[in-house]
């Protein structure tokens, strides 16, 4: 059981600022995802948490006590590595039991706990195999069992699914989430895959150039991003420049493409703003009178539950929208598009 507070973490490699004041918290039992492209500092943050790296500044505390002075081998955290990092010269049981062996646990307790851990990740029967004799998905389960068998205060996962194929990724993803929730363990999860982050996390920290751009629930990150970078990184998005922005109670009155809308948005926007429209905030209008935009359907992809549609506007811009699967649309059709202003979100425009 552990609540974690990371405050103002800084790390510099030569002229490269890897961490530029990272602050995060995790409540007991939460899974917090660090999401971002490579080089954003997510792995560096995790390595500081694990104790593999000393930050230049800032603090990390667990249940109120500072752990930065504690070496990695005394922190008692479980770590799952991207390439599994299994010991190739030890069997599956040997890998899982290594930490227990270091603690000099009695033989019977060791055997019991190894068996428990293997049952937890559904690996029974593979005790005596070596890592090279089992599949990638099984290796990842061994890595997970190995991290959990010591009943760590904190579980740290560094892109644990990156090397698995799509089907296995889904399976192991749910396994990780189940096990984490079942054992009520606090976890930090590093990934660059937004769908992974959305599906698994209690909280998501979207990272950008060594900083946390936004730290919120997956829903909030997706629906109410604080800036374009976050919106872009967390799913498909359309951005429209707004003219005339006026704050009103609970939102803003804006003018976009000649139409007046009332939308919610990031508090404190003064002048320049852009409107975020997720594909599901747009729809094809049944008659052109309700349409805000007119355009030509340029691309169409049938996805089963819906259709992904790209419409080219006369001014050259394009809009991506999700269309119901049973609605007849064809490439080349003229389509009127309307905005569902309930699902629109106003953000400050970033000056390039």
């Amino acid at each position: 059981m552990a609540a974690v507070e990371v405050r103002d973490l800084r790390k510099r490699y030569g002229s490269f600022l890897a961490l530029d004041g990272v602050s995060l918290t995790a409540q007991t039992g939460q899974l917090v995802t660090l999401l971002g492209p490579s080089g954003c500092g997510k792995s560096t943050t995790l390595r500081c948490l694990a104790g593999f790296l000393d930050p230049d500044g800032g603090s990390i505390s667990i249940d109120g006590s500072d752990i930065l002075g504690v070496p990695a081998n005394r922190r008692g955290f479980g770590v799952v590595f991207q390439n599994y990092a299994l010991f190739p010269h030890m069997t599956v049981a040997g890998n899982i039991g290594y930490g227990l062996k270091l603690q000099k646990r009695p033989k019977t307790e060791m055997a019991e706990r190894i068996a428990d851990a293997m049952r937890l990740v559904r690996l029974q029967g593979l005790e005596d195999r070596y890592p090279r004799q089992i599949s990638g998905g099984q290796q990842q389960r061994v890595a997970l069992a190995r991290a959990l068998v010591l009943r760590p205060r904190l579980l740290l996962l560094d892109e644990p699914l990156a090397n698995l194929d799509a089907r296995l990724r889904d399976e192991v993803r749910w396994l990780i989430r189940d096990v984490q929730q079942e054992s009520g363990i606090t976890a930090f999860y590093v990934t660059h895959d937004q769908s992974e982050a959305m599906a698994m996390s209690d909280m998501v920290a979207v990272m950008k150039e060594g900083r946390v751009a936004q730290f919120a629930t997956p829903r909030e990150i997706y629906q109410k991003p604080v800036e374009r970078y976050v919106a872009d990184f967390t799913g498909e998005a359309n951005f429209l420049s707004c003219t005339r922005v006026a704050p009103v109670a609970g939102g803003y009155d804006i003018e976009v493409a000649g139409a007046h809308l009332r939308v919610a948005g990031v508090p404190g926007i003064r002048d320049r703003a852009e409107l975020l429209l997720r594909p599901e905030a747009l729809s094809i209008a049944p008659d052109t009178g309700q349409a805000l935009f007119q355009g030509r359907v340029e691309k169409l992809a049938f996805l089963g539950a819906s259709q992904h549609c790209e419409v080219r506007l006369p001014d050259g811009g394009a809009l991506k929208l999700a269309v119901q699967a049973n609605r007849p649309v064809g490439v080349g059709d003229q389509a009127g598009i309307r905005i569902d202003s309930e699902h629109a979100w106003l953000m400050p425009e970033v000056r390039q």
Partner: protein
Amino acid sequence: MTRGARLRLLLALPAVALIFVFMVLPITNMVEMSFRTLGTTAPFGDSYTTGHYSRILSDGYYWQVLLRSLVTALLVTLLCLLVSYPIAWHMSKAHGFKAVMLYALIASPLMTGVLVRNFGWMIVTALNGPLNETLLGLGIIERPLRLLFTQGLVVLALVHVFVPFMVLPINNALRNIPPALVEASSSMGANRWQAFRDVILPLSFPGIYPGVILVFVLSIAAYVTPALLGGQMVSYMPTLIVAELNGTFRWPLGSALAIVLAVVTLICVAAFTLLTAKLMEKSRA
């Protein structure tokens, strides 16, 4: 036979011919020679005998020389391993210019000829050589140290020249160990010593094994260093063999000694391989 198979055979031919002419033929000749009788007017006689082998096996002197050669080779191998491991460790962590410099330094003992190197040792360690002069001058010793023509100096000189053969394969093996393995072990509670003992050492065995074999085989067969630095008082198998072949001209006895040395060496290598087979199998992943 397909064209591909014929081509492969053709390509293998030079290597096979080389091994046949420079290994199979001489060894066959040597074995044959070791069973010949001694001659009075020639280095060997006309008839055959197993007498040289029974003489070697029953004479304590030969056992003593063989034992000295074995102990020396083992000692050299062990010291090489102890000296080389930390060097290999540093090398495996080095990149760019530092790595190039380290490689050059490591290979430096091999860049001087065997005679020059050993005469160098003779000059440095002589009674009135620079080492003794310096120590005397500094007042550290009162009388010059007798270093030259001792077994200790032979071991030291062999360690010096064979260190590269140990460092390079171990360095390779260490480079192949992912750093995440050490981090993984430390996240499971291992301190630095435990991580070394349980992860790094076993996984570097694929480098230790060839290093040990190379250094052992090279040092048990070393001739020039024991001959020049070991002095006249003690014999090693190679110096004894050369003395029989070139000094007393008893070629059959010299050949028999050479065969004995080769067989003993082979047994040692085979025993080491068998004893470590399981570790090797596990650590090679």
